[in-house]
């Protein structure tokens, strides 16, 4: 799998993502600079976590207007795979490539903790190595992860199976009102969604930080394995 990771000023999880991609695919990803206007030959573009442009104005808002995003959009139109994690998810919503927005956490505090995610749709290129309703653990670390979207779009997302992951308890029970299991207060406990063609995925938690048993588990690996498989097919 030929992957590229976009680095904006303030991006800070590009190294974690590179380690995860290299560990699963055996191939080191290319690092792309936010001012690049030409992309190398790639199967996957990752928008990693961090504080692009210091989160000033609004998380992801300025990155959405950087030169490379024009290329990323064209890459998506050509059917390339795009994964946005944390700040990357925020950027994808700011560009309109994914619907909705990520507001301040319900607690109004930055949250850094493990959460459990239930796989809602195991037929996407990002989730195929799981079964529907599988539960896995992932660290989350963000101040603005509270997913909201208008009612009509929500209905569409739910109806079309575009909710990829939901925050849940370790046994898979989803309780949107429960701050223990839906820590940032997301609507319908939504943690990750995909685009209508299933090729663009945004999620708040960090599967890339759990791909090594030394760091507490390998729960995040299936996501990257799914992508490798999708690219091969």
């Amino acid at each position, binding site marked *: 799998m030929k992957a590229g990771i976009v680095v904006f000023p303030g991006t800070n999880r590009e190294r974690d993502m590179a380690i995860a991609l290299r560990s699963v695919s055996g191939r080191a990803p290319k690092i792309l600079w936010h001012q690049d206007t030409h992309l190398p030959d790639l199967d996957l573009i990752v928008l990693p976590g961090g504080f692009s442009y210091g989160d*000033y104005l609004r998380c992801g808002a300025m990155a959405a207007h950087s030169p490379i995003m024009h290329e990323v959009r064209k890459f998506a139109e050509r059917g390339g795979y795009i994964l946005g994690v944390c700040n990357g998810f925020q950027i994808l919503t700011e560009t309109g490539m994914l619907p909705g927005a990520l507001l301040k956490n319900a*607690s109004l505090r930055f949250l*850094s903790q493990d959460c459990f995610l239930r796989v809602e749709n195991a037929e996407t290129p990002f989730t195929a190595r799981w079964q529907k309703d599988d539960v896995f653990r992932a660290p989350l670390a963000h101040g603005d992860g509270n997913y909201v979207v208008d009612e009509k779009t929500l209905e569409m997302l739910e109806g079309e199976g575009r909710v990829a992951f939901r925050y849940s308890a370790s046994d898979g029970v989803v309780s949107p009102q429960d701050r223990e299991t839906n820590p940032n207060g997301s609507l319908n406990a939504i943690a990750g969604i995909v685009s209508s063609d299933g090729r663009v995925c945004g999620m708040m938690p960090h599967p890339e930080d759990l791909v090594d048993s*030394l760091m*507490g588990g390998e729960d995040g690996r299936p996501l990257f394995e799914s992508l490798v498989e999708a690219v091969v097919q």
Partner: protein
Amino acid sequence: MSSKQKVVDAALARQFGLSGEEYDQVLIIMGRVPNLTELGVFSVMWSEHCSYKSSRKWLRTLPTTAPWVIHGPGENAGVVDIGEGLAAIFKMESHNHPSFIEPYQGAATGVGGILRDVFTMGARPVANLNALRFGSPENPRTRQIVDGVVRGIGGYGNCVGVPTVGGEVNFHPAYDGNPLVNAMTVGVARKDRIFLSAAAGIGNPVVYVGSKTGRDGIHGATMSSAEFDENALAKRPTVQVGDPFVEKLLIEACLELMATDAIIAIQDMGAAGLTSSSVEMAGKGNVGIDLDLDSVPQREPDMTAYEMMLSESQERMLMVLRPDRTEQARAIFEKWELDFAVIGQLTDTGRIVVRHKGAIEADIPLAPLADEAPIYDRPVATLPAPEPIGPVHDPVGLEQALITLISCPDLASRAWIWNQYDSTVGGQTAQRPGGADAAIVRVEDTSIGLALTTDCTPRYCYANPRSGGAQAVAEAWRNITATGATPLAVTDNLNFANPEKPEIMAQFVAAIEGMGEACRVLDFPVVSGNVSLYNETRNPDGSTRAILPTPAIGGLGMLADVEKHVGMAIPRSGVLILIGETKGHLGQSLWLREILGRETGDAPDVDLRAERRNGDFVREQIISGKVAACHDVSDGGILVAVAEMIMAGGEGCELEPPQSGMRPEAYWFGEDQGRYLLAVNSDGQELLHEAGMRGIPSRLMGKIGGGGLTLPSGATISIPRLRAANAAFFPSLMGA
């Protein structure tokens, strides 16, 4: 304010924090009356914060060398060899005064400053830790300070993408008017790519990079060198404002430049900003320096030379570059959208000459500014004997005492705090906060693990500064050992009250003696550090309240094979074994404070020979794979340590009866030092036998299993009950 308008005299010097004798010395060095800018330079360079004038005599007594130490105190941070051609670079520094005045920015810029000390030397920062002391939870301002400090540390550390992996927190009324915020950064660099601050090469360009200079933080170093009075909060303009986004860019730009051969010397602009960085770089290199302030990137118009030299605007660095690499360097900083300006050059004059708008605004000989800086041998009083412990009786029983202790402010779960710090960014955090006695961070692309901790028990230091100083070092050493790592070196952050008072100097001197002895016996040298004095508040009636003496220790250890480390979570089966001798010392214990409401008695004795022997044994057992989990016995004694292992692992333990001839509360809650609880997956007989053969006190504590902590009486405290008691304090204090 212009340097021409204000009359410089002894009275103004006093306002700037210089004593009459110090001002006389300035007159002798200058051979004339200094102008305002020059007076400003002297006052910050000779402030306690920059000159260590009260502490230097005693700091020199600390051991600072070992075969693995590459750079000890004197550089921006300490450097130790961790093998495979790599070095760990680390330091801890205080930001106490600013954090009281403006908690969010005070704490945030504390993190920013210590990060710069570490990446200045060429290291990529890989971990942050902190040591925090707050006032009484009953004091309404405490809540506000906790909130601001925690948000500030998180706001900065999370944004720069350096994981905050550990720390410690205490509450005590002695910190009501003077909280302590000590921040530590650990970085990793190639051993052959370490950057120092001594300038060299006459004519070489002096380059300014980073943020623009504004009027913030002027005289911050002087403010940090005086006690607080009722007008403390009016000093807010002396507090700097941080921008972690710029810091992140600065880290990446500096590391990119450091991969080339452009840099001859580099120094961050910390306390006293442009003044201290230029004076120190030129002074260390025995050269002169000319600065042209017209070239300094400025945030606001019409800044004077005085303001620019004294500004503590954040996220700035000063470098001496190879002239033929200047343009290459400029391109890197422009790529990262940071200011880059050549603001001067090195000279052979041995003087710092500052020009602004065509006039010479300062012209000072560097050697006397450094060499003739005042150094004081302040009077030291005789330490008072610790207050007798008084009669001890147990009014509540073990079960109630345990619940009270694990829910008290000093032992309650810190999850509310660490859940606001990104502890996983970087993808190398093998033990996060609460998982082990020290945080474990793998060095990327190697099997090396770093074990990191911060420790100090201020109530011990108050009762007996010498034992307390030794205990702080010993506990850091023990916490590292309890993961299986080998302790390598420490950074110290010495927080004390007014050194002009002989009784405070007595605390300082005794604590350093205790620390030094522990460092020597444990082969755990001090490689960097920071002193913060004048941590006391003057009340409106003229009386003062000093903080508890708080020599915080930041410890660093390593594992050649990180996979061999252990955490503190009790495993599913096996037994718990206690290593170390239990004497039942209740003086200054948390049990005494929380159950009987007294802070009396002597601090526990620290038997450094036993500490070393017990710790070396424990580490050997862990590395040989015989131990499933390990936790040191400290605050709250054995029963609290067992409860902490149970809460972390979610498995119970049935405890054996105590040693005969000892009162139960003394046995279960005594705070004797040098002890560890080891969980092993077998019946433990082999390990007990091995300890016995080596003359190491050991004891079977209990069998793992059951639904909670089962006391010898048969009463069981369930795990949910333990966890609920432990979890309540922070959310209820903070209302979230």
